[in-house]
């Protein structure tokens, strides 16, 4: 009997979006995703200009701050990742210069890339480096989200870093393992998405020995994300660059619509690096809420570095909370699962596998968090699009649009509804993972109960934190 997500969607249900008229034709053109990247590049130029010109002026009236930390972040969490997987990576302009340098051209296809083309060390082919890079970036959240020049420095660093590192390391190692602070969570949370790129007919790939998608040909590059398009297990490392659509001589790649969270049931390459990414994302949703949407002035003073000791306290507590406390509490429940379920399953395997239940929980926590930004503060966008650099422009007549919170009365209901849905989905995925991990069903049931309790406690805690 096929498993169903939420009892409704068969796990193996797919609808091929590239079977719709014109879609495949567009995807196969070399102008795709080049044109969206160029458009995005223009927006980023405005963001960088605004960040540079903005200096230490008010972030809420700055195009750079608003478009990165409000527009982009909200779109990423609420729309792009859950619905379209790593579509941001498809159109991200930050590594574009590095990639064009590697290819020594924009449209040209050459199979020897410029640069040292060093391979990334195997021991670092995981999320550990980006976990720490992301955590490090979050230490600066107080400045990053309020001082335009800080956002400018971050983005410029990534651009320059990518150009340098992409001439050293081959292909998209920069994006995968090194320099993108959000790469880790994009990879992990994309497992939740209702969209995927996969080979249409696996038999064709089995019979096709010369894997054009991996090696490249005159029509397109070897997969820059260094995965095997003919055998993509999970969305995690597919950056949706669409090269494989161009190289495949059998036109065998497809973009599919599918039920949510199916990748979380794929037992491939699960690891503690991803577990810790899940802990960090959940922990940060909590800690950031306390700082940015909480009522404790001293926390804000800490994050704002009012005093050095305060700032260091924040850095230390933030790190302990995310790296040790949340995993520690989770471990207690996993230990209970181990005890009640079956002691024959190695504790490490149980811990790793069940940590994937924190992926739906984490993504939904971030969506609920985002509602808390959307309703009160998105109105500032209207000002910044009319006067992006505070030069006295009024392009759309909205330069003096006042701060206008909306629907703040129903906002908590959006948050609660989202969190309860997140609980249901996490429990569903949790039990399925439990069945995968334990040998017998009754063990899976007993082992699931402590995990279900943990997920429920986290949900109740988040409901209380956000709305109570």
């Amino acid at each position, binding site marked *: 009997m096929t498993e169903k997500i939420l009892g409704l969607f068969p796990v193996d249900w797919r609808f091929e979006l590239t079977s719709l008229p014109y879609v495949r034709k567009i995807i196969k053109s070399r102008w795709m995703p080049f044109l969206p990247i160029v458009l995005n590049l223009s927006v980023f130029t405005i963001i960088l200009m605004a960040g540079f010109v903005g200096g230490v002026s008010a972030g809420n009236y700055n195009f750079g701050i608003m478009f990165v930390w409000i527009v982009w972040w909200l779109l990423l969490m609420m729309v792009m990742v859950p619905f379209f997987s790593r579509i941001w990576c498809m159109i991200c302009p930050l590594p574009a210069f590095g990639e064009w340098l590697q290819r020594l051209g924009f449209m040209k296809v050459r199979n020897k890339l410029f640069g040292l083309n060093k391979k990334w060390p195997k021991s670092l082919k995981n999320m550990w480096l980006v976990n720490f890079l992301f955590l490090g970036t979050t230490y600066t959240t107080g400045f990053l989200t*309020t001082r335009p020049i800080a956002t400018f420095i971050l983005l410029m660093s990534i651009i320059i870093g990518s150009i340098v590192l992409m001439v050293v390391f081959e292909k998209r190692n920069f994006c995968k393992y090194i320099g993108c602070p959000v790469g880790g969570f994009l990879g992990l949370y994309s497992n939740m998405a209702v969209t995927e790129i996969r080979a249409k007919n696996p038999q064709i790939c089995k019979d096709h020995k010369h894997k054009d998608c991996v090696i490249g040909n005159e029509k397109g590059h070897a997969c820059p994300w260094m995965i095997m398009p003919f055998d993509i297990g999970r969305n995690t490392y597919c950056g949706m660059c669409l090269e494989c659509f161009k190289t495949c001589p059998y036109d065998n790649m497809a973009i599919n619509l599918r039920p949510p969270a199916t990748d979380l049931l794929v037992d491939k390459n699960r690891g503690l690096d991803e577990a810790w990414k899940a802990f960090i994302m959940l922990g940060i949703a909590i800690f950031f809420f306390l700082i940015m949407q909480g*009522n404790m002035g001293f926390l804000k*003073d800490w994050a704002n570095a009012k005093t050095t000791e305060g700032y260091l306290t924040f850095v230390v507590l933030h790190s302990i909370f995310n790296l040790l406390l949340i995993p520690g509490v989770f471990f207690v429940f996993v230990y209970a699962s181990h005890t009640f379920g079956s002691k024959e399953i190695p504790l490490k395997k149980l811990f790793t596998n069940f940590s994937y239940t924190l992926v739906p929980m984490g993504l939904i926590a971030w969506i609920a968090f985002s509602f808390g930004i959307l309703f009160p503060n998105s109105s500032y966008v209207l000002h910044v699009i009319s006067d992006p650099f505070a030069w006295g422009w009024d392009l759309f007549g909205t330069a003096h649009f006042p701060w206008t919170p909306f629907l703040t009365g129903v906002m908590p209901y959006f948050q609660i509804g989202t969190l*309860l849905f997140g*609980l249901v989905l996490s429990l569903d995925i949790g039990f399925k993972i439990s069945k995968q991990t334990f040998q017998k069903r009754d063990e899976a049931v007993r082992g699931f109960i402590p995990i*279900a309790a943990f997920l429920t406690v986290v949900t*109740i805690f988040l409901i209380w934190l956000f*709305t109570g």
Partner: protein
Amino acid sequence: MKNSMKFLIMVLVLLAIPIVILAQTEEPKEKVITINAQQFSYTPGTVEVNRGDRVTIRLISTDVHHGLYIDGYEVSTDARPGQDGSLTFVANNTGKFVMRCSVTCGPFHPYMIGYLKVKPDYRLFGSIWLAVGIFISSILLVIRRQKP
């Protein structure tokens, strides 16, 4: 199956009892509360009133121009040092409402937040009750399916 449904209903009813007890309403009163605003928080950080109270908030700023906007109620006032603000409303809606600064007052202005809690918080109790219900239902669901 009937047994587990009965069990679920029984637990949910039992859970509802402490909620009903906790959700005792009090007689509406007049409340005057003074809130001090400084970069970037309010003191007190939380204001608790009961449903039906007629609440007057006196806003005092100790450093720069600050505002106070209350989510849900959508009322606001502002204050400069030496020029207090005031707003009055009847707390008919229950739950936690975020109070936000409505005048850009420095770099951390968007994070300048206080909480207004109007008791009893039916919404919170209801959501916790639902979450527990989901938990118990999920356990019953997986146990139930075991018996063919």
